[in-house]
């Protein structure tokens, strides 16, 4: 510190300057010696190959070196792994690496098919290396979808997928406060009108019984400016028979093998009209369009055992309302828009995107230790290892109860819930892993709860025409097409999201609808639909 004090007159002689520079240099050599530990060496001194593996991991996740399966992995491949653990701003970091052509030997959980459209040449084509990865080969044979979602149009495979089991059909489930329902003496709603009446009763009859009119009948967190997300009111479209699946956040859906966009669909207008009716009656949280996920989450946890929210979407009741209030809430079954409608109610259907993913693993084309890298990749997809990657180490987080049966243990830290726990302990979802179809698994509490909570909606899932009405999660688009879509979407969503919230809060959808549709057409919404249609057709053919 002393050297900074230039201002003190006499002390800053030239000698001072010299000392300062000398100190700087000394410090610099010291640290650079200490810090630069040969990053590019391909082998250790005793000849073991060194693999640099970058992993885009969740920030809750502990250090890689603390996971037991990691040392097993090193044993199995006979190599030493140097981890580059990135848990924030991965996308920015990735862009710089790629554009500079500078990638580590292997990347876990961080590359997607979009990257491959531009930077494919940086990565090893694994389609001809499957013989060296018997586990992967077996997976591709037994689970054709797993292969399909990573195979590019020219047959190359740059990314390996992840295959899970036990996940639900969708993420967003609608909950209602059963205790309130009992308090106001009403039945579980089955139509929008019944729902409306229930919401009015929630507002007026003090169902939480604290004498204050602090109940918020209906709540959701603010929709993003870049489209809808999970747990948001566009989900009501299912009531009108419109099947939401992947890419529905930006409006795209498939009806009878035709790609469409609900932002210019009359049914979207009906949803807005219903929401506007609720808003005008003061049934929706005033903050619904401004409070973010985290605030909305806190709000629904209420005060002590006094609930504040009547109806809202969530992952599971205990996740959404907290352990204390979860018991008050029940999942809502299919809601018809009108009592006399013939169109069946459908549920949001995202089975494929929840069970599979295609971002798990990629190997650099320039790796000096390709053999070791392939060994590691293969090891990930081993039966035990897959369980460990998804739920944590055998022995501490999971248990092998039989030849093909496993048990996910409750969190060792009892203050954590099971889904947080897996993110703390291991790489969890999207890691390179293959949970076998015939494995018997005792699932963790969160999955059991979500499977249970989804039951009331089962008829709505059954009503989905999974052959002709589903937008596949893993469509393949060329880099140029992606650019066009993204560019158009930026403009389109800017209009749609702003209009949606204005219409819900201030009304006027009827008057402005036609002009709005025209604006969207000028913003090339139809061009996007065409691009998706083409990709959809290609996907269905293959």
């Amino acid at each position, binding site marked *: 510190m002393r050297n900074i004090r230039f201002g003190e007159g*006499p002390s800053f002689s030239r000698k001072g300057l010299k000392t300062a520079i000398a100190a700087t240099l000394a410090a610099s050599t010291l640290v650079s010696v200490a810090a630069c530990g040969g*990053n590019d060496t391909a082998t250790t001194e005793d000849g073991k190959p060194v693999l640099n593996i970058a992993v885009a991991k969740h920030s809750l996740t502990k250090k890689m070196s603390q996971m037991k399966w990691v040392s097993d992995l090193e044993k199995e491949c006979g190599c030493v792994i140097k981890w580059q653990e990135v848990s*924030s701003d991965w996308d920015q970091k990735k862009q710089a690496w790629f554009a500079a052509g500078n990638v580590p030997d292997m990347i876990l959980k961080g590359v997607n098919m979009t990257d491959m459209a531009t930077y494919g040449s940086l990565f090893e084509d694994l389609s001809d290396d499957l013989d060296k990865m018997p586990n992967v080969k077996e997976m591709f044979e037994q689970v054709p979808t797993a292969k399909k979602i990573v195979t590019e149009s020219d047959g190359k495979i740059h990314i390996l997928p992840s295959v899970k089991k036990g996940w639900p059909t969708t*993420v967003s489930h609608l909950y209602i406060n059963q205790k309130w329902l009992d308090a106001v003496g009403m039945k579980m709603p089955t139509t929008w009108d019944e729902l409306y009446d229930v919401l009015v009763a929630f507002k007026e009859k003090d169902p939480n019984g604290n004498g204050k009119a602090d109940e918020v009948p209906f709540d959701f967190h603010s929709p993003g400016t870049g489209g809808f997300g999970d747990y948001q009111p566009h989900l009501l479209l299912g009531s009108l028979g419109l099947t939401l699946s992947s890419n529905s956040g930006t409006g795209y859906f498939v009806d009878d093998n035709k790609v469409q966009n609900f932002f210019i669909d009359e049914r979207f207008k009906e949803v807005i009209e219903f929401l506007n009716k609720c808003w005008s009656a003061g049934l929706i949280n005033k903050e619904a369009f401004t409070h973010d996920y985290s605030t909305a989450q806190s709000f629904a946890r209420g005060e002590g055992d006094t609930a504040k929210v009547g109806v809202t979407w969530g992952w599971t009741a205990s996740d959404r309302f907290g352990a204390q209030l979860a018991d008050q809430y029940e999942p809502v079954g299919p809601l018809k828009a009108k009592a006399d409608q013939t169109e069946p109610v459908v549920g949001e259907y995202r089975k494929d995107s929840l069970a599979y993913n295609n971002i798990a693993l990629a190997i650099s084309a320039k790796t000096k230790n390709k053999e070791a890298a392939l060994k590691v990749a293969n090891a990930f997809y081993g039966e035990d290892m897959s369980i460990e990657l998804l739920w944590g180490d055998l022995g501490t987080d999971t248990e092998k109860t039989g030849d093909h049966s496993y048990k996910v243990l409750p969190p060792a830290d009892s203050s954590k*819930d099971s889904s947080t726990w897996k993110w703390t302990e291991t790489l969890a979802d999207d890691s390179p892993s293959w949970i076998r179809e015939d494995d018997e698994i005792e699932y963790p509490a969160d999955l059991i709860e979500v499977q249970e909570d989804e039951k009331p909606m089962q008829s709505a899932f059954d009503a989905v025409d999974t052959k002709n009405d589903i937008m596949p999660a893993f469509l393949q688009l060329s880099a140029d097409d992606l650019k066009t879509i993204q560019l158009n979407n930026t403009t389109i969503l800017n209009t749609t999201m702003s209009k949606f919230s204005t219409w819900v809060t201030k009304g006027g959808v009827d008057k402005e609808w036609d002009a709005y549709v025209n604006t969207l057409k000028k913003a090339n919404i139809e061009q996007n639909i065409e691009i998706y249609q083409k990709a959809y057709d290609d996907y269905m053919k293959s």
Partner: protein
Amino acid sequence: MSATATSPASKGLDASNGKIQAPGRADIPENKKHITQRTPGDWVIDIIIWALVAFVIVSIIYPLWFVIIASVSNQTLVNNGQVLVLPKGFSWYGYEQIFQDSRIWTGYRNTILYAVVGTLLNLVITLPAAFALSRSEFRGRRLIMLFFTITMFVNGGLIPTYLLYKQVGLIDSWLVFIIPCAVNVYNLIIARSFFETSIPEELHDAAQIDGLGYFSYFVRIVLPLSSAIVAVIGLYYLVQHWNDFFTGLIYINTYEKQPLQMVLRDILLANSAFAGGSGSTAGAGYGQELADQIKYGVIIASTLPLLVIYPFIQKYFNKGVMIGAIKG
């Protein structure tokens, strides 16, 4: 003016190791000056000033206080607007999370190192340049200024920069925090403008007569008189290094070299990754709530060290009185 300016100044130089005395000026207690003639108008102004100061203090101190109480409160209560004056649902969870994370100590060490060494280099490079450019006889200075100023607006973008750093071996090296940002043009301009306007030209005349070259003039006369600006520029640079996370984010691959801000960002981002996230990451609600608390604790953890620095720098603001002595 010139007569009184030159001779005491040069005498002062020879007499006391380059330090210029300000006889009998600095030691007048400031508040005495105003006791003598107080008009009712002065009282009114005083009241207005105190009212304004009170307003400023309240409007700034409350949010700061809020950060403190929020960092030890239950986040559900914070998010619902129930934490107002005192912490509610008190817990140290946020700080426990921050300080039990061993990475944070490495982060502190790295940041202090980068900031101190970096600031040192910044000052050594910036101040002489600023001085040189403040001299009107320096031909070509306008051109050089333009050369500098352009860089405030035009940059080549992330990728060419990355490639350049890669070429010169700065990727994943701690020097990347120090070397590329050696000159901040904004600071350079401020320092230059200070030298231009606050250092009396008579001093230079005197120095010339004493036979001082520019080097000696700068080091022995200008710098000691500029402690205030050196302190400010030093502070600017220090804080720039302190807050820099982008460099670590993009150019550093080894976690042990990451600065504090990156470590804190990691701890902090533990929540946002789930927010409205995609299906596969949905549902980690409990973690979320706890991570929110960290958000406030992080501010305290990263700002506290800077709190110590400011009074240290403030000290230099009162030294400028010396210049006046020469001018007078």
